[in-house]
């Protein structure tokens, strides 16, 4: 089975090299999708001898992930692992995802909700979790974790339209709507940047989008 790790990156020159090096220990094929970074992210990634796909302008995380997945499909990869470029996900857990992927279509990484996770994120996650359960019949603890793995076959079924942080929720919605098999595994997470990631406004947009995904096909 051909496996590829996709790392969407935006202004991550300080951490991207380390993330790539760690990821390469577990997956031979690594693709970095630079989402219009203004710093040296592209140069740092290219020095690590991996494929770097460059968005000439910033489109958002969802778009960067989709570019990476399209590359994976175009090049005949069977399994896709996606993880963040800021070092909050531990690549050492990739084998756990690949192991779980043998029996299912999609594997969601789930962070533990302890005091390390900001309160707003904990509440947002809880709320979105309830809506997910009601609307799409998908019951997972962590709806916003970006550490996931899926088969190319599953990706083709759940291709998303979201350009931004709604992508994680749209993936879940599509998993429910397309009746894909899924599993959730525990992951360790470090919170390195408080100013990055999903904001309260993003959360509101995500919930509004969920209503739309429920109504649309």
């Amino acid at each position, binding site marked *: 089975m051909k496996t590829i790790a996709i790392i969407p990156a935006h202004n991550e020159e300080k951490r991207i090299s380390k993330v790539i090096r760690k990821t390469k220990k577990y997956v031979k094929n690594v693709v970095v999708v630079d989402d219009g970074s203004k710093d040296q992210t592209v140069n740092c990634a290219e020095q690590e001898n991996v494929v770097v796909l460059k968005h*000439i302008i910033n489109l958002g995380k969802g778009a960067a992930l989709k*570019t990476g997945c399209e590359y994976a499909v175009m090049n005949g990869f069977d399994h896709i692992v996606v993880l963040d470029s800021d070092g909050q996900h531990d690549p050492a857990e990739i084998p756990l995802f690949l192991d779980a992927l043998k029996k299912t279509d999609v594997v969601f990484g789930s962070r533990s909700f302890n005091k390390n996770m900001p309160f707003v994120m904990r509440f947002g996650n809880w709320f979105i979790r309830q809506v997910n359960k009601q609307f799409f019949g998908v019951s997972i603890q962590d709806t916003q974790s970006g550490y996931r793995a899926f088969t190319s076959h599953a990706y083709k079924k759940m291709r998303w339209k979201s350009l931004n942080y709604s992508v994680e929720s749209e993936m879940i919605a599509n998993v429910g709507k397309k009746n894909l098999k899924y599993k959730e595994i525990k992951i360790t997470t470090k919170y390195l940047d408080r100013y990055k990631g999903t904001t309260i406004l993003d959360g509101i947009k995500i919930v509004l989008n969920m209503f739309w995904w429920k109504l649309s096909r």
Partner: protein
Amino acid sequence: MLISLQIIGMLFGLIMIYFTFLYFRRQEYDKRGFIIWFLIWIGFIIMAAFPQSVYGIMEALEIKRTVDFFVIGGFLVFSVIIFHLYVITKKNQKQVEKLVRKIALIKPEKKLISKKKN
């Protein structure tokens, strides 16, 4: 009161004609766009200067005050413009996304080919 509103309306129309001309000279849009917007502002000035020109329409719509007519008319026009801009923005967003992805996916292939040649 009405006269001061009329003056403000006419001045606004004249200022917008100036900007319409300015952006046309800067080639921000073509002659067709210029003519359409010029006619819209001329119409606006005429209606502000001679409110009686719209009395016929007001009677048909059973609107008593000229100000009400302009407020309702303005709201409808803005709604149409906002919808039109929304459609254009969404269309552009989709096209930009497609284009950016296409460029991102073409370049690594080219790199691989050039590496093989070397």
